[in-house]
């Protein structure tokens, strides 16, 4: 148990039963298939991947919005996967989530004031109406809006403003950990950076730890300290940001980075490195999940690879260290 870890998951899984055909053979969609990682206090941990990789499922599972099928999760030293009701409530206070869609996150019939005060009431954090009002005013100003916005309703605000409101509502209960699920993906580009800066400032001011989930490599690079790359329900690479971008080692990470267009026409490149589509998440993978699309796959890859620390604090789930592994070079030569 890592003392400095605010969140630790071991082999966390979420399987959805799927009915295949008329005679109901039970098969499972493995949205999360054994995710083990730990997030340190005070850091911004990035979780990146394409659709279907499980990053959103992971975020929702650790928030207990989805029940895990297996594995364990420890929050601030306490196992939380089985807690219910009154035991769960104080945990909920300490971890909050900001969702992707600022338009749907707020009750359209609820004033902003009410949206901010309600969490305080739920957790009995205020003893009087005046105190609640004062705190709401503080919060709304802290996120860059002003007092008269409190009496208004969500549809009177733009996307960026609504996202600020949801952030304020999350802060209302004074959490220590926040899951940010694509917080800027629905916003205009010129507004995205405003929200990212706000989140950055708030982290410093309140000593928060962030789990930042995104499919956008560029944004992840700018805000995260460490990054985990997910594919088909598992973490395939885990490293510090600088390391990941300068020296990616897993073939999927390499392909992912190579596919991201750069807004600089003088650096036009051959983009499409990865062919084919993501395979189905239903069914067991005895082999490496990435095998069907991997340019370097060999016979060895018929067996699921272990998670290896290829250099300090840099983990990949692959049989090879492609760049350096002489065995890899040899195997590639004899590829079947």
């Amino acid at each position, binding site marked *: 148990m890592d003392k400095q870890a605010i969140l630790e998951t071991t082999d966390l899984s979420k399987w959805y039963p799927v009915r295949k055909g008329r005679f109901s053979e039970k098969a499972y969609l493995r949205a999360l298939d054994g995710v083990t990682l730990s997030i340190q206090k005070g850091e911004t941990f990035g979780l990146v991947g*394409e*659709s279907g990789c499980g990053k959103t499922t992971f975020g929702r599972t650790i928030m207990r919005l989805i029940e895990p099928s297996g594995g364990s999760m420890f929050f601030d030293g306490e196992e939380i996967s089985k807690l219910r009701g009154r035991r769960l409530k104080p945990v909920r206070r300490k971890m909050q989530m900001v969702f992707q869609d600022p338009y749907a996150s707020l009750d359209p019939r609820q004033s902003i004031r009410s949206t901010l005060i309600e969490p305080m009431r739920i957790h009995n954090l205020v003893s009087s109406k005046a105190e609640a009002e004062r705190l709401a005013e503080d919060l709304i100003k802290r996120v860059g809006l002003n007092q008269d916005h409190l009496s208004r309703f969500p549809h009177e605000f*733009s*996307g*960026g*403003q609504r996202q600020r409101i949801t952030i304020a509502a999350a802060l209302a209960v004074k959490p220590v950990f926040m899951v940010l699920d694509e917080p800027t993906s629905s916003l*205009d*580009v*010129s*507004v*995205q*950076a*405003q929200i*990212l*800066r706000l989140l*950055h400032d708030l982290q410093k001011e309140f000593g928060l730890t962030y789990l930042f989930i995104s*499919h*956008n*490599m*560029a*944004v992840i*690079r*700018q*805000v995260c300290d460490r990054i985990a790359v997910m594919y088909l329900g598992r973490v395939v690479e885990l490293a510090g*940001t*600088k390391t990941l*971008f300068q020296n990616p080692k897993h073939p999927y990470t390499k*392909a*992912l*980075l*190579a*596919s*991201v*267009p*750069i*807004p*600089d*026409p*003088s650096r*036009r*490149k*051959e*983009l*499409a*490195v*990865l*062919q084919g*589509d*993501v395979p189905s998440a239903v069914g067991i993978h005895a082999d490496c999940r990435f095998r069907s699309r991997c340019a370097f796959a060999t016979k060895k890859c018929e067996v699921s690879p272990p998670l290896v620390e290829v250099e300090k604090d840099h983990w990949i789930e692959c049989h090879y260290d492609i760049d350096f592994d002489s065995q890899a070079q040899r195997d590639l030569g004899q590829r079947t």
Partner: protein
Amino acid sequence: MSQSHAQGGGNEDVLSIRELKLKFHTYAGEVSALDGISLSIKKGELLGLVGESGCGKSVTALAIAGLLPQNAEITNGDVILDGKNMLTLEPEEMRLARLKDIAMIFQDPMTYLNPVFTIGSQMVEITQAEPKLFVSTLVAHRLRQIDKEAKGGEQGPKLLAERENLAESLRTQRLGRRELNELTKSYSISLLRSVRLPEPEKVFEMYPFELSGGMRQRVMIAMAMMRRPKLLLADEITTALDVTVQAQILHLMKELRSEINSSVLLITHDLAIVSEVCDRVAVMYAGNIVEIADVQELFRNPLHPYTKGLLASVPRADVDKIPDSIEGSVPDLLFPPGGCRFNPRCPKAFDVCPSKKPSLIEAVPNHYVSCFLYGG
């Protein structure tokens, strides 16, 4: 003065939009969606139309294709496609134009493909709509196929008979129903192959739900190519796709450019995509075109303050720091700001900006901008 240059009108322009103004009548009032835009696309050119939400880029495409909703009103301007003014066409002429001259691909192929028909039947439908327009293409394709089949060897009596039939059809410009369907089928399959779909014969028989998002988008591209349009309108075609699939589609578009020989209007909010595939770029803000330039020139030397702000705010995967942002947010077009619509957010705004609207002028050769900082 130099406005006529920006508007085009030269012989090589496939599309020329002049001072187009458009508003929507809603119960809440009038939304001034397009405030006098002018742009042009040359033959074979890939023009990127870039802007944030509500800037009017999708509306522009709909105006070109004649697919505006009922409450839209065009109050000024022309849309000239290859000499024809699209705004004055009769409904029947417009339908034919949509069939042969313009092809449009949208963001979400699932809603634009009919879920209860196979891919194949939807492709065959295209030629069935107006067979006359497709006879030459279909016959030419089949003749090429026959030639390839019979390569080297002699052409047996069956093939010779078919050749004669085809020649006859070509002369009379008519095809029997069954013949039309068969020729279209073989043409469709070869198109599906050219968009790099695996097992195109199988895909032909599949239903949309059996395909992934990337595959469906390729089908849409194939359907567009079928018509050999003069202008291809691609509206946020990769926004809903994963980045690796997006890369495949963009790669495909680049490959097909030479084959299609169409001009393309690529609409997107993503400057990175524009940088990867476009020849020229037009930047839109709140219903106005604020800058037009060649893609290298625009990124190297952005003139309009909005373009500068936009470029500075794009997150880049090759850079560490959080980008800048532009203060404020996109205006509500029910109450657009007076004068230059960007002036409330502009760091360089001065006294004339809120009162007059700047016109699009050629500040640098072949680089147009709509801002008082450069005159106009």
